[in-house]
């Protein structure tokens, strides 16, 4: 990890500390993702507890009706969670309950419309109150809305924006400089989802570019599904994000905790 960490908010400080701890143990930070309210509102807490046992950081998704950056796995999970009654405010309540039991940093993944609907200031207030450390905003390029990042900072939250293999050097610079939590590098041109084979060919070049500008740790996600893909990513990244694989496991009634243990082991440098 080359970045010099200057935390701007309490959330950012906690996120950076989690990366630093993993780094000290010779690992990339392990960042599992789960859709709030999946597989059911009740079962979610148990699944999240299992993930938190192994996670350096937990990413919780607000279920959204039109998640256009997501593939079928997360999309279906969102539909199911929404059908089960999980809401934006409900998600923040679920996080608040997790926060009471765990010290591990928790970041929220959300599309922008739920933020606008609740009202950016009110949303940030609720997130801060729930103990959220940061936000990941997959459909908000940082130059679209500067107010969101400012409001997040005002409420102690860190923000994470994304880069992709198609990002030009100028875009990478702009996005990297806007991130206060960690920088999220999308491994492939595509939506979320576990893929056949490994398609991480574009990651090293992208990360080299990102590190020129990022003052925060750089994590890689999309398509990481097992210990093997995690190991490949861990060689170059500060953190590894895994989402659809856990949703698939939860759907099939497999042990989410066991999968998390395996993938975490794969995050060894």
């Amino acid at each position, binding site marked *: 990890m080359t970045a010099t960490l200057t935390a701007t908010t309490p959330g950012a400080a906690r996120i950076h500390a989690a990366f630093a701890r993993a780094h000290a143990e010779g690992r990339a930070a392990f960042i599992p993702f789960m859709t709030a309210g999946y597989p059911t509102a009740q079962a979610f807490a148990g699944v999240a507890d299992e993930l938190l046992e192994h996670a350096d950081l937990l990413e919780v998704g607000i279920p959204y009706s*039109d998640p256009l950056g997501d593939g079928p796995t997360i*999309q279906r999970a969102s539909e199911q969670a929404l059908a089960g009654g999980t809401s934006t405010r409900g998600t923040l309540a679920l996080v608040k309950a997790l926060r009471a039991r765990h010290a591990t940093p928790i970041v929220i993944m959300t599309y922008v419309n739920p933020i606008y609907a609740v009202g950016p200031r009110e949303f940030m207030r609720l997130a801060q109150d729930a103990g959220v450390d940061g936000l990941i905003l997959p459909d908000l390029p940082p130059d679209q809305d500067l107010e969101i990042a400012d409001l997040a900072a005002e409420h102690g939250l860190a923000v994470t924006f994304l880069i992709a293999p198609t990002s030009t050097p100028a875009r990478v610079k702009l996005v990297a400089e806007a991130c206060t939590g960690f920088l999220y590098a999308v491994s492939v*041109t595509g939506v979320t989802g576990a893929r056949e084979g490994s398609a991480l060919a574009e990651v090293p070049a992208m990360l080299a570019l990102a590190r020129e500008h990022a003052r925060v740790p750089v994590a890689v996600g999309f398509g990481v599904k097992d210990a093997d893909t995690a190991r490949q990513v861990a060689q170059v990244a500060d953190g590894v994000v895994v989402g659809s694989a856990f949703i698939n496991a939860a759907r099939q009634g497999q042990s989410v905790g066991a999968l998390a243990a395996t993938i975490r082991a794969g995050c060894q440098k």
Partner: protein
Amino acid sequence: MALSLPTYPQPDERGRYGRFGGRYVPETLIPALDELQQAYHTARTDPAFLNELDRLLRDFVGRPSSLYLAERLTEHAGGAKIYLKREDQNYTGAHKINNCLAQALLAKRMGKQRVIAETGAGQHGVASATAAALLGLDCVVYMGAEDIRRQALNVFRMKLLGAEVREVTSGTSTLKDATNEAIRDWVTNVRDTFYILGSVVGPHPYPAMVRDFQSIIGEEVKVQHQALEGREVPDVIVACVGGGSNAIGIFAPFAYLPEHERPLMIGTEAAGEGVESGRHAASVAGGRIGVLHGAMMYLLNDDEGQIVPPHSISAGLDYPGIGPEHCLYAETGVAQYVPVTDAQALDALQLLTRLEGIIPALESAHAIHAAVEIAGRMPPEQTVVVNLSGRGDKDVAEVMRLLDLAQTAPAQDAPGVIRPQEVHA
């Protein structure tokens, strides 16, 4: 050179129409949108591009479409003269072809061999498949399962034209979900795929580019109205609004005139079973500001930001949002947006058919309804121009089904005319 594309003062350089519009998309697409914007910027003044587009619009599409005085409809309304801008005369049956040919030419210029499109009523899908066949491009069209049922004829036309139609079963299985899938495809295949977006929605530069390509409708109206009435500007212009492309195409050439020269412009939104019923697609009347498909706009979404499934009798209006430029027009009063119900549209469809021998698309029938209402309240020397965005061939099976339902309903008050209230009884 015969054709030039208009320039308008909106959007700003960030793709904003006031607070509306923008680019709320995954970062993966931002470079592609920049590339598209650049390609469009050079193409829009390139004589080679404009001449080819002009040739195709003239000889392939059959432009200009006529501005037709609907005498019997005028008489029925009992007021101002009602003119129909006959986009239903276009090859493939609707205004969508204007935009599709232009975008497909742009795709070809950019060296993209594969095009994708979303479609609701199927008209944009057919137009995209047609343009792709003409220019030798591979074409994939995303369409909701519900719309595939409602628009079987158009599905077959697309396949006949060589396009692949991908059924979308996520969400509500209609246009918004087909749009989501098209965007997901584009995110995945962005390096070699051109997304032919079908309305004035989506991330910048789409709303501006689609508007420019559709503005030919309003530009022709100016010339035709001048020839017929001795003045360029009609008193009233009415157009239906799904995403809003046919409406912006006829509005935009008038929208930036000084206020006292501007016609009254009315967009008809699909009110479905009534705005108060909750089963509608009226984004201005029944929505609130939100973000969908990359743009901020009036949107049917609940107080937690979840998109509310829209409903309309017409697949082409069955969209939960409305293009950002319309949102600005609505907010500033440049145009007014009025709800028209399913029943009113079905009634207007029959009215126009019986009186003028023109079967309109169900979408366009929404505009006909409002035009008759307003013309009746205007003096005879004034004019109302209705954008007849498409013809009804695609809808006849669905209309037959709806009217059959009505036949089995109790007594009709006017012989031979089925009262739409009964259709929904």
